[in-house]
């Protein structure tokens, strides 16, 4: 029945209108509690700084780690943070799915004539997380100016590809985790291993990893493609065994793999769901 509804049910109401109005309402709602919004934004900003401090503390003890010095790692950190935080703003709240599943309130979404994923994604866009994108942008900008970079069209292309497809990969991890939640229920913490583990992994110089970690975070959940490999290309550095720097140009392929796996997992999960009762 739903499928037979014309895309433009009423003149003047486009297909995207419902999403636009829902998103606009969310954003208005967040801005109206000013004190909470301010604390949220500050804490998201501090979260980014503390993550940077973790990396910095290590480089306070050593000069070079995994072939990168602190200036080079700052670029990896910046690119990774822009991508991950952007993905978090857009789809990060898929993370709250276990709570929604347990409360049985997901069933409402099934009744509405919109794709389930689109509804979950637009249900709770969090502007405060933009503060962390800011930390990423600042780190990347500083890193791009303090490193010796031979600027060319390829460098610019690499930065753009990294930001766009890196965000796709991180978003895919969130959606993959969401799809798995339908099966895991109370074991939901397991997905933190590749979502937040993936976020942490992508800020590290992958050269320090043993083989199995390179397979897991290099190819299975391809987060090395988000920041580390692009940074190697931008800085004109060679990669470690198993992860040569030219692989970075295959970032769109890695993103396609991640997105395909995410949509397949989500579909399986949605089909598996039997309802929350009530």
């Amino acid at each position: 029945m739903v499928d037979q509804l014309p895309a433009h049910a009423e003149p003047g109401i486009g297909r995207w209108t419902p999403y636009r109005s829902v998103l606009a309402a969310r954003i208005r709602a967040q801005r109206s509690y000013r004190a909470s919004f301010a604390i949220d934004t500050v804490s998201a900003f501090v979260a980014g700084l503390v993550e940077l401090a973790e990396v910095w503390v290590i480089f306070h003890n050593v000069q070079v780690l995994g072939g990168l010095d602190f200036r080079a790692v700052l670029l990896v950190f910046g690119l990774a943070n822009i991508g991950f935080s952007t993905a978090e703003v857009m789809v990060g709240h898929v993370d709250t799915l276990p709570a929604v599943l347990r409360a049985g309130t997901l069933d409402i979404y099934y009744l509405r004539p919109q794709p389930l994923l689109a509804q979950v994604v637009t249900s709770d866009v969090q502007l405060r997380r933009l503060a962390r994108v800011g930390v990423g942008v600042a780190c990347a900008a500083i890193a791009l100016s303090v490193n010796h970079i031979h600027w060319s069209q390829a460098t610019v292309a690499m930065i753009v590809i990294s930001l766009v497809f890196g965000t796709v990969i991180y978003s895919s991890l969130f959606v993959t985790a969401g799809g798995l939640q339908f099966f895991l229920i109370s074991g939901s913490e397991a997905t933190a291993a590749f979502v937040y583990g993936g976020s942490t992994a992508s800020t590290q110089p992958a050269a320090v990893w043993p083989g199995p970690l390179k397979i897991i975070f290099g190819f299975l959940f391809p987060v090395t493609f988000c920041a580390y490999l692009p940074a190697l290309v931008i800085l004109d550095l060679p990669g470690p065994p198993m992860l040569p720097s030219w692989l970075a140009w295959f970032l769109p392929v890695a993103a396609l793999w991640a997105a395909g796996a995410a949509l397949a997992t989500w579909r399986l999960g949605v089909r598996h769901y039997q309802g929350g009762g009530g």
Partner: protein
Amino acid sequence: MPPALRPWFRLLRASFAAQTRYLPAVAGGLIANTTFGFLKAAMLVATVHAAGGSVAGYDLESMVAYVWLSQGLLGAVQLNGTSEIGERVRTGEVAIDFARPLDIQTSYLAADLGRNLFNLSTRLLPPLVIGALTTGLRLPTSAGPYLLGAIAVLLGMTVSFFGRYAVNVIGFWLVEGRGLRNFYMIVSTFLAGLFVPVGMFPGWLHTLANCTPFPSILMTPIDVLSGRIVGAEAVRAVAVQVFWLAVTCAIGRLLTARGWLKLEVQGG
């Protein structure tokens, strides 16, 4: 058991028992803790190698012991900033807690300890075994560090609770406490030494961390259990934990007493 302690013990046991019903949660937690353990181990082992075999007093095997002890204790010390009471303050359900003939802070402590003792019993050993099998780690061979270590772990869990409790009852004054809880989580995990041992911090940051209760939550239990600090130094570290326990407990009690006066609940 003295009758006065019986209700607390029952609360503790009930909360422990509730956790045994969520075994997938144990598996999920272990998968996450272990993955982070491998990432942390890769970075810190590479740091030890890059520094020429020793960094801030850690050699390879003691660094690996730090990594897997911290991952194993994480479930027990709960650095996540949440406490059950926060949500109940927000919804007003906390009024029911005040109506009970039990001290509110101690009730939540008993339930929290029950839950986290379960986490301790299920989540501590697997990461240590994985660490021993993959990279090899060094733990003390005498009984002393384990006995004092057990006390330090219990104290760490209690300080962790009192800290989270205090942050959550600030909800009496805030409409939405989530931002504050997030902030607390971020700062406390870092200063507790979850990602990098506090000993590797530069001097000023080390001093700053020691002015907070956070190292008492995680770093001290790890240092005592791993035998990194022994004898008088270890006893002194445990005494510092007791000091922070008293401070965080008092702050929580004060905030509860003040917040109680401010509480307004609709309906009846």
